[in-house]
């Protein structure tokens, strides 16, 4: 570089206000630092969930479907058992000859929104009841899994050592059992038993439902137990827990500040993933004829019944199929959203 060019010592000698070269105060400095507001883990996760449009839409769909499934039957003009031989296999919004005659006489008849089935029962109310069964199975199974899984996992993780080893061996074995086969086997057995049972509730629920709940109680909680136990064990060994112990944090503070937030996220994620798989299992069993007892409809049994008239009445398949697809899709998408929002590892 040439060194002949003019070099002056103060490059900005006159152009800048000398006041600018006064010392900056701490407040002025602090203004420059845009601090990210600190929020609790739960609030942060909820905020991320709310920002996830797909998850929020799915949640709305689930709430809407649940409202329909539980409220509409209270005022709906048809029941799921009422048969009408004159109104068999009607297409959606079609009226039977008898109903048409009444309408011609000026009576108001509520339309069969989804038509009727082979026995002349209103299809819409049957699909609604089937949806209700699916939702109930999903939610109750999640509850069973949460309760048993947390208790088992917490005990195993808390005690550690030999207790933990034995408890986890049991979990390993249960985990490797083919669950659907066992559900089927139990359903077959329970179906036989239900037919001779005098209990009204069990008879109404049906073999499939009873065995599903038994199997969930026996087998399905293992992944929850594993996750909860894993969380508790790893948190126990985390350096930040050691650190907070070292500065004298009480056990209750450690449980509140570290264990619960970390476990809550895996519990939410695992439970959310549990619901669609439970709904799948129930509909699968109902399709095989092992689910709820007739005349109670389930989306699986509706789809199974629709096969006989599939060529002529394809809508009898489409409606329950769409319904189950919509429910499971919504739960899956909500589950994905919850996982993204609550998984601390994904926090950025």
């Amino acid at each position, binding site marked *: 570089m040439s*060194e002949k060019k003019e*070099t*002056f010592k103060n490059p900005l000698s006159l152009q800048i206000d000398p006041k600018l*070269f006064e010392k900056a105060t701490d407040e002025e*400095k602090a203004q420059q*630092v845009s601090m990210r507001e600190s929020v609790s883990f739960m609030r942060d996760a909820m905020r991320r969930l709310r920002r996830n449009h797909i998850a929020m839409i799915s949640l709305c769909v689930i709430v809407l479907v649940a409202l329909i499934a539980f409220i509409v039957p209270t005022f709906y003009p048809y029941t799921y058992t009422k048969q009408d031989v004159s109104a068999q296999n009607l297409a959606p919004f079609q009226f039977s000859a008898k109903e048409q005659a009444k309408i011609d006489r000026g009576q108001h008849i509520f339309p069969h929104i989804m038509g009727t089935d082979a026995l002349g029962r209103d299809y819409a109310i049957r699909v609604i009841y089937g949806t209700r069964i699916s939702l109930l199975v999903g939610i109750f199974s999640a509850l069973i899994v949460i309760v048993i899984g947390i208790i088992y996992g917490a005990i195993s993780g808390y005690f550690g050592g030999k207790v933990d080893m034995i408890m986890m061996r049991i979990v390993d074995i249960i985990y490797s059992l083919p669950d659907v086969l066992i559900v089927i086997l139990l359903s077959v057995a329970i179906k036989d038993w239900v037919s001779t049972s005098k209990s009204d509730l069990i008879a109404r629920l049906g073999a499939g439902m009873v065995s599903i709940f038994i199997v969930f109680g026996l087998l399905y909680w293992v992944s929850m137990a594993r996750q909860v136990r894993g969380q508790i064990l790893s948190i126990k060994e985390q350096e930040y827990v050691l650190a907070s112990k070292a500065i004298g944090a009480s056990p209750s503070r450690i449980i509140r500040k570290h264990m619960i937030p970390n476990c809550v996220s895996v519990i939410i994620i695992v439970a959310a993933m549990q619901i669609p798989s439970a709904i799948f299992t129930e509909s699968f069993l109902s399709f095989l004829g092992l689910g709820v007892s007739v005349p109670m409809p389930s989306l699986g049994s509706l789809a199974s019944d629709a096969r006989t008239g599939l060529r002529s009445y394809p809508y009898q398949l489409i409606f329950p199929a769409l319904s189950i697809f919509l429910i499971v899709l919504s739960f899956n998408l909500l589950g994905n959203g919850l996982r993204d929002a609550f998984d601390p590892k994904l926090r950025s």
Partner: protein
Amino acid sequence: MSLLEVKDLHTSFFTPSGEVKAINGLSFSLDEGKVLGIVGESGSGKSVTAYSILQILANPGRIVSGSIKLHGEELVGKSDEEMRKIRGNKISIIFQDPMTSLNPTFTIGNQLREAILLHTSRNRQQAEERAIEMLKLVGISEPEKRIHQYAYELSGGMRQRVMIAMALACEPDILIADEPTTALDVTIQAQILELMLQLQKEMGMAIIMITHDMGVIASICDEVIVMYAGGVCERGTADAIFYHPMHEYTRGLMRSIPDMNDDGKTRLVPITGTPIDLLHMPPGCPFAPRCDRAMKICLQEKPREYWVGRDHLSACWINVKEGACFTQRPSEEEAAQG
């Protein structure tokens, strides 16, 4: 002409929450056979500088503007295919963590051979011989056996030696070492540094040593760049930086190093505060919020780089205020006065 000339480089990561400006106007040059140190704390843009030179930035990172010239040839804007001929051949890199930088599912020999086959006309047999030769060169015993081993069968220090062998197999002009000793034990650190210097003497390549360890810089570098928040604070010869630091951040770094000759009573002075958020860059000097001597102008306007010595540039308003800088490279007399 310098071997490598970087001018006004800007690299950003376009994340969902906004543009993270990882490098804001970085300029430096590297001469053949020299060792250049880049020092700074985590997040200062040291590694991104290395990845920008090789154009191996992870998605969503991108060079926004600037120029990188190797032997006078512009690299920015080259196609991936053209860049591939440079990577591993003209410019090589070794990474911080040798534990994860080698592919776990292929043998050491396989990975070494691949680099050699890509850039030279050697056949498989010759490439294998070269791989063994390189392993021998980096001081690995029984190289004929090692090439059939997997990375997980080697120790950390050995893996870093393998990485060095792989990087140097095609005799590059520049070796970028991205914190090559950070993940290693202290005793191994010294061995690896020694090995690099020895190989540099034998093979004559230039080295860019990226580190946050001032000790490493002091022991091996000819020139030093001090980076903060994606920009240059100060650059120059190692002597200039160490004996006459002309930026408050560098001075802070120096104060935070323990001194062997100390009587043990002076306390180490940490730099208080935390680095700024690269998503929301303030208009002024990025170090100003943590700077004890910050002035009003520091918060408002970013200082330019000015010469503060013959081989020494610094971007600090205090130098301007004190009249200790030049807009052009000063002559020897001027520098002596300043």
